């Protein structure tokens, strides 16, 4: 009899203690789910800098976790939300489905995905239109060597990455309508060897300017470029520190600025779930040159590129944006 009562007590305690919907709140807390290592000097590193900026500028508590697969996305979203984090950022297009799935259970947490189009009462995409900058880089490549070829190496073939390549090619064709651009994907974000091999193959087929958007595998692209003496373009963050002799310029996102703005809105209760778009016109997206290789770009080309960037900012040139 006593045993059965104890068992019942145990079951009740278990059920109560394990309630997944509990929401404890102690101060404002922000979490980041990165799809790769924050040491990638690119996409993930930039997001981590953004998270630290939120911590320092708003004086709030932050946390970060590396998540690789949709089940891990969901697990991390759920865990942060149940622990009462008010803002959880899934860093990439791929986090949308998990955010939409978890969000109804945690109405008091805002789920932000960087890229995407999914909007729910507490889910919103923060879209970085890196296309603005890759368009300018494509134009730069085609102007530097009008009879050459350019190429791009990506991690996974997802809209947010493909979009940067489409704009890169459109930029090149803006300079010369039949400028050839070849694209290759390695099917993941970590394999430096695969990125290097893919780049070498593209160079063997005549590529002279390579743009990479492969996160932690990106340095493999720079390595190949350095080996064969061609120039590369970085993405998401200033990347000429990674390969000072190979990276001519980078398409850069000012993620700290964007994260702080959103986090401040959420913190102050002013946040409205809607697609947020950051562009070159806002100053969040930019092209940053490698000062050590400034001599590679002739003055007239530099002038025209700057003029094109101004036109992109003024929206007098149409940059193709990815449908997300």
């Amino acid at each position, binding site marked *: 009899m006593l045993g059965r009562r104890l068992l019942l007590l145990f079951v009740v305690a*278990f*059920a109560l*203690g*394990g*309630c*997944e919907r509990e929401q404890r709140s102690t101060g404002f807390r922000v*979490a980041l789910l990165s799809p790769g*290592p*924050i*040491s990638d000097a690119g996409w993930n590193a930039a997001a981590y800098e953004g998270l630290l900026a939120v911590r320092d500028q708003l004086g709030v508590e932050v*946390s*970060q*976790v*590396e998540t*690789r*697969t*949709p*089940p*891990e996305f969901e*697990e*991390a979203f*759920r*865990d*942060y939300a*149940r*622990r009462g984090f008010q803002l959880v950022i899934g860093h990439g*297009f*791929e986090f949308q*489905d998990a955010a939409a799935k978890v969000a109804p259970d945690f109405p008091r947490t805002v789920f932000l995905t960087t890229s995407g189009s999914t909007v729910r009462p507490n889910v919103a995409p923060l879209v970085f239109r890196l296309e603005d900058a890759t368009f300018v880089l494509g134009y730069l490549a085609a102007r530097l060597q009008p009879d050459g070829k350019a190429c791009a190496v990506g991690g*996974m*073939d*997802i*809209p947010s990455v493909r979009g940067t390549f489409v704009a890169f090619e459109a930029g090149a064709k803006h300079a010369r309508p039949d400028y050839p651009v070849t694209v290759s994907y390695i*099917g*993941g974000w970590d394999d430096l060897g695969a990125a290097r091999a893919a780049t070498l193959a593209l160079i063997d087929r005549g590529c002279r300017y390579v743009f990479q958007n492969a996160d932690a595998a990106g340095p493999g692209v720079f390595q190949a470029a350095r080996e064969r003496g061609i120039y590369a373009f970085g993405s998401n963050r200033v990347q000429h520190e990674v390969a000072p002799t190979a990276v001519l310029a980078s398409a850069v996102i000012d993620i700290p600025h964007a994260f702080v703005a959103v986090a401040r809105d959420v913190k102050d209760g002013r946040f409205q779930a809607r697609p947020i778009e950051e562009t070159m016109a806002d100053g969040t997206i930019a092209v940053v040159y490698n000062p050590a290789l400034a001599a590679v770009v002739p003055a007239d080309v530099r002038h025209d590129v700057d003029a094109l960037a101004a036109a992109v900012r003024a929206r007098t040139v149409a940059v193709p944006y990815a449908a*997300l």
Partner: protein
Amino acid sequence: MLRALAAVVVAFAASALVLLVSGARPLPALAALVAGAVGDRFALTDTLLKTCPLLLTGLAVALAFRCGFWNIGAEGQLLMGALAATAVGRTTGAATFPLPLLAALGAATAAGALWATLAALLRVLRGVNEIVATIMLNFIAARLVGWAVHGPLMEAAGRYPQSDPVPTAALLPMVAGRVHLGVALAAALAAVIWALLFRTSVGFRWRVVGDNAQAARVAGFSPERAVLTAMLASGALAGLAGGIEVLGVTGRLFEQFSSGQGYTAIAVALLARLHPAGVTLAALFFGALAAGSGAMQRVAGVSAVFVAIVQAGTLLALLALEASRGRTIAAAEHP
């Protein structure tokens, strides 16, 4: 049991040292690890969900190793199982439950068995080293999954390299919360594999072939047949692991589907000394470690890299203590 406890203590002490080097505070970090593994129902659920594929692939590896076949291909067999379960689950999903589920699980089992048999045939007929063959088949399976989710199985929206969700009629029922029936199935299969290995003539042949193929041949057993049947069973288990992962956890297939469970399975099997009961415990341990390490990042702010070091260090400590136990026993037997 006492020795296992000692191993865990040593492992935690070593981990604490690593954490100290990383700049994290070791005690809160390890507390987060434990809480994230067994602290509450959320943690226990995560541990069980992460144990399930490790248990099945661990059994697959242990069974193959017992037969002297170095099956490094549980990863590829798991992926083929996931691929088959998704394809069949999506096409038969309109029928009434449980037909689509059974069809999908059957397809996963068959696909895993087929993938493993390829390597077994290569060795039996052509003398191809099975380690090389199974590793290469892993790469092919990963590429096949990548191709499928960019091609025929890609979601209708065409945005992300993943399949559309498998219809509900093909999904595994939930036992409690997010814990699906596959967990119970895996536990039952551990018992079945134990019985198969130690209580049937088939299992006896596998073990004899694994211990000494020459002696098996002299005794009238065909090592070739034993390897083929063992790999059929091994691949079936690993394939089922992939199928259950799709039908119980992810609900769909996507690129980079496995986070390396098929490789962790080798550590699980070796730590368990290839015994099904041990595999169950080892899989639980690795499942708990995987669940807890996620929490260690989220709660204690330890970076993913150091979490990986702690995981590997724990395994090494356990193996080292296991090895020293082996020596002690050997010394006692042969003074």
